[in-house]
């Protein structure tokens, strides 16, 4: 190919390229739009829970302090995982690949720890007789439905986030993915943490046994 043909190709290519919207990489804008839509999804289920709770005449508040303590530990674990993910993103942007991979590995481990604590809480409640449609205390069955569905939806997001972090960690380590991918995954993980900041007070603290 001659230089003039190459130059023509470059001019044509340059005229086709547009300025990125908001000066963001497309994948970063995409994850922001996904986060907004997911926030509305969680908002809808939390509003539904709110109306069920306020409209119920025999709502049960079953969480003893041991469950609240478990919730506190889960909150600390998830907040710490957000910090480690932030460290991974900063390391990736600074070109420190091995450091970024280690921080992502730690984030994934903390995510697994959160999921383990969560499932432990579920098993404890099921052992007491709680189900999606059963209340062992004889009160409103809607508590079980709200609790297991909302926390289950959040746990699904955590699980998908852990898988995504591991995939990006491996891909970034092998040089197939960029720091942009690490940042995008980080945004999703912070969103998962942000949702827990509403789930913990509304589902656990509002249903603490006094």
């Amino acid at each position: 190919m001659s230089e003039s043909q190459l130059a023509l190709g470059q001019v044509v290519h340059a005229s086709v390229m547009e300025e990125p919207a908001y000066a963001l990489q497309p994948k970063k804008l995409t994850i922001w739009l996904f986060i907004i839509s997911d926030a509305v999804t969680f908002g809808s289920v939390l509003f539904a829970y709110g109306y069920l709770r306020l409209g119920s005449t025999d709502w049960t508040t079953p969480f003893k302090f041991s469950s609240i303590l478990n919730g506190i530990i889960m909150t600390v674990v998830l907040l710490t995982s957000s910090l480690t993910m932030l460290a991974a993103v900063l390391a990736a942007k600074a070109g420190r690949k091995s450091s970024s991979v280690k921080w992502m590995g730690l984030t994934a481990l903390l995510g697994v720890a959160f999921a383990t604590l969560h499932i432990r809480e579920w098993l404890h409640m099921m052992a007491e007789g709680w189900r999606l449609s059963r209340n062992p205390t004889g009160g409103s069955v809607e508590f079980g439905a709200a609790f297991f569905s909302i926390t289950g939806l959040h746990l699904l997001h955590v699980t998908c986030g852990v898988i995504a972090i591991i995939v990006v960690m491996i891909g970034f380590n092998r040089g197939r993915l960029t720091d942009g991918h690490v940042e995008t995954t980080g945004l999703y993980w912070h969103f998962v943490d942000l949702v827990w900041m509403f789930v913990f007070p509304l589902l656990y603290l509002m249903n603490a046994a006094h």
Partner: protein
Amino acid sequence: MTETKSLREPGMKFYVFVWIGLMIIAGIEVLLTYQGFSTGKLLAILLILAACEAGIALMYFMHLKYERPTLFWSLIPVTIFVLFMMDHIWADAIRLVRVRVLPF
């Protein structure tokens, strides 16, 4: 494709302080739960604190503060509006469930 940054991002030390702040807010939420407030008052307090936590996480952990302001103004007010409207439409939906259809 390079991005333009409107504000200089802080270092890891600053984010550790943000993390400590978030945990303090979570601790305050737990303490307030056992102060004997009524359900409505506790709900309002916890929602305000949760919104503060979410705002801090959004602006600092998710770096929205360091992106172009147009991104913030395009996404956040609209989302808040949608959530606000959803909260108010729910009550109407529950009312409609109780409306009886007269048989002909």
